[in-house]
């Protein structure tokens, strides 16, 4: 029962705060660029507005186009259920085997790609091809990063990994965390991989795939990407500060964990906004280098971890 409630609290907290995360990044970016910027609560209104709007769906699409938003949103909600974001030891924590996590991430990406291809527009196909290029490069880095955690902590679920991962006592985790941050940027279509605010049809990756979606479907997809950003923000923060999570159902522990969620979101959003304001987006053909570096950093972590075990 306790585990069930813990998971329930985590789901409500993450799903509730997600649009705020996106809005906060936008606001920080605006402030850093000398603009006033919209309220960080704007994405809630955007999603509500989209839900009320009529949908325009191309005649050339099949049923796949219609299930994509649900699969993408479903896969992100699954991640919210199993990952240690607000609490440790949730109901479904045992499902969070790192191979499953990598698989669910890939599932979301593949369906998004299919949604992009469905409408047979030039941009959807272009975005889809770019996304698959990135996905195939991200995948090995994800596996290697979590493998490092697995070796260090001897656990295979993310939940157990993060409980046992103390970055100060196991230096092998430092490269793994660095790789995790790079993966998080690529997975969430942020700088330097993709520009989330782009209006340029020709440069976009994620936006190109969702270009043909409108109304409630678009709301689902936007919500899914907001949740994903929140998941990765919290993951990166949690691996650095695992003590900020609640592991029992006492009111104090929960309140502290929830308070920390807001603090973590604010700090991560600000760092992301800062990063996106001080660098230019990379040339698309440099992505390979970026993600290869992520992979090799993760690999070096794994090597350190294996060496420290055998010694």
């Amino acid at each position, binding site marked *: 029962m306790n585990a069930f409630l813990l998971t329930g609290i985590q789901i409500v907290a993450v799903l509730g705060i997600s649009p705020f995360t996106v809005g906060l990044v936008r606001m920080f*970016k605006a402030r*850093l*660029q*000398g*603009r006033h910027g919209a309220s960080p609560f704007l994405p809630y209104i955007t999603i509500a507005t989209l839900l009320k709007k009529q949908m325009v769906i191309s005649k050339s699409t099949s049923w796949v186009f219609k299930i994509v938003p649900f699969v993408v949103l479903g896969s992100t909600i699954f991640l919210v259920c199993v990952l240690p974001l607000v609490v440790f030891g949730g109901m479904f924590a045992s499902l969070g085997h790192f191979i499953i996590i990598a698989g669910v991430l890939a599932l979301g990406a593949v369906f998004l790609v299919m949604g992009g291809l469905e409408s047979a527009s*030039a*941009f959807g*196909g*272009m975005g889809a*091809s*770019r996304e698959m290029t990135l996905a195939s490069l991200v995948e090995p880095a994800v596996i290697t990063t979590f493998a490092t955690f697995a070796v260090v902590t001897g656990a295979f679920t993310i939940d157990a990994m993060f409980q046992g991962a103390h970055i100060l006592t196991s230096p092998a985790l430092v490269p793994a965390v660095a790789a995790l941050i790079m993966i998080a940027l690529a997975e969430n279509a942020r*700088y*330097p991989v993709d*520009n989330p*605010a*782009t*209006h*340029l*049809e*020709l*440069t976009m990756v994620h936006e190109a795939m969702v270009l043909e979606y409108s109304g409630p479907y678009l709301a689902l997809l936007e919500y899914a990407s907001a949740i994903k950003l929140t998941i990765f923000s919290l993951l990166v923060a949690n691996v650095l500060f695992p003590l900020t999570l609640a592991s029992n159902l006492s009111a104090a522990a929960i309140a502290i964990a929830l308070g920390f969620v807001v603090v973590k979101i604010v700090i991560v959003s600000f760092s992301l906004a800062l990063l*996106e*304001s*001080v*660098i*230019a*987006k*990379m*040339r*698309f*053909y*440099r992505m390979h280098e970026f993600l290869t570096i992520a992979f090799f950093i993760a690999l070096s972590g794994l090597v350190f971890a294996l060496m420290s075990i055998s010694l």
Partner: protein
Amino acid sequence: MNAQQILQNVQLSGESRGNLAVAQTIDKQEFTRLCERLVAEFQLPLSLFYATDKRSEGHGFGIHALFSVDATHEWILISAHLPESDPRYESLTKSVMAAHWYERYAMDMFGIIAEGHPDFRRLVHHENVPLHTHPLRKDFAWNTKMEHANEPYPMHHIKGEGIYEIPVGPIHAGIIEPGHFRFNVAGERIITLEGKLFFTHKGVEKLLEGKTITEAMPFIEGVSGDMAASHALAYVQAVEDLAKTNVPQRAKELRTLIAELERITMHTHDIANMAGMGTGFTVMAAHGFRIKEKMMRLSERVFGNRFWKGFVVPGGVGKALSKDQLSDIAKTTKEVVDEMQDLYNLGRHSDGLRERLETTGLLTKEVAVAYGALGLPARASGIDRDVRRDHPYAAYAELKPEIQVLSKGDVYARWKLRALEMVESLKLVETVCGAKNEGPISAEVNIKEGMGIGAVESWRGESLCVVYVKDGVIDRCVVRDPSFCNWALFGEIGPGNIVPDFPLCNKSLNLSYSGTDL
């Protein structure tokens, strides 16, 4: 060698009118051969090619080629007549690449056939315009309602495994003018790139016919909003050339002032737009556009509008500027240029930004010469041409701006050159603002029959205007925005780059749809 000597060399007689040498009208067979000789033997750039309808005078159609003799600051105009019954001549494009769009334009607008033109497709007329519609012929009324036709307007296709065609526009995601681009790509690499413009033809040239000199001003200033002062200046210079008006010195200086202010405004915009919007280095855009706004507000304060309009008038300038206004201009401009230099240095030292800009959108000198590229993109590719020095107008002969030329020809060179030119412009602005502010600012313009030419180095490049006046009103007014010559460069700049870098190439030229789409 000056213009007269060149004409003698090719056994042509001609009259010299100031800095324009008008060759006697020649036979159409000779026309093409002669133009080819001027380009090949004397390396004269073809500056303009246009047609006229002279059927009312019994001459059929006229075709005219204007060559620039940069060294002696002169122009050479070669003309030929084509009979109404058979308006054909041998295409110049076969050997003079720079004529390619001009000849297609004349085919659409006048029905003059350039035989052997390598690209016989329509240019201005889209599918919906019926065959044999030639709007610039005198017997075509400006308010003609056309039938809706469905003529072919094919785009280039490439066949092959993995070749993918991306149509972009004419409606874009940003708030820009309409233009359609067709990419043929293999993966992300661009193989060919072609544009289809002329979506919002305004009929400016037709509307100008029959207007008086002053009635035409708003139309000229509206050709391209970001170049209002430059177009107006080119036009009034053409009129003054025709009327032999002596513009007072202070008016000339003030014209230089407004032209340079426009240059600073738009260079600010472009530096911000390329680095900021093109690469996603948002801080450049945020600050650049804020700084540009200062210039636009300066225009609002001094001239009553945000786009440097209404100041240049035939005979001089529209109003005297007070001492306070001049010091406001000098102070604001200095502030703007200083801030932009800081921003430029910030960008220059950003590895990420330079990585995006360098080697992107390469325009080689050879291509730039062949296509007759103009203005800043040409100078960034090593072509040392600038109307301010080669055909001095306004007060440039005395002020002698230093012309900067870069050789790399990539997006970075074009970005950098804007920052460099801005500093030079500031010097000119400060000189004019600090000079003695007295004397008349306009002279009377006595309109005669005849033709005149005006050339201006706008921020975008050489802007030309040729005016023919008959019975006190405009008979034909050719307005040539530099964009008209530079649009075709995309076909050369784009291929080899990857699709996500195209917006950067596009922004580095910043061409006007409206200025091309008269």
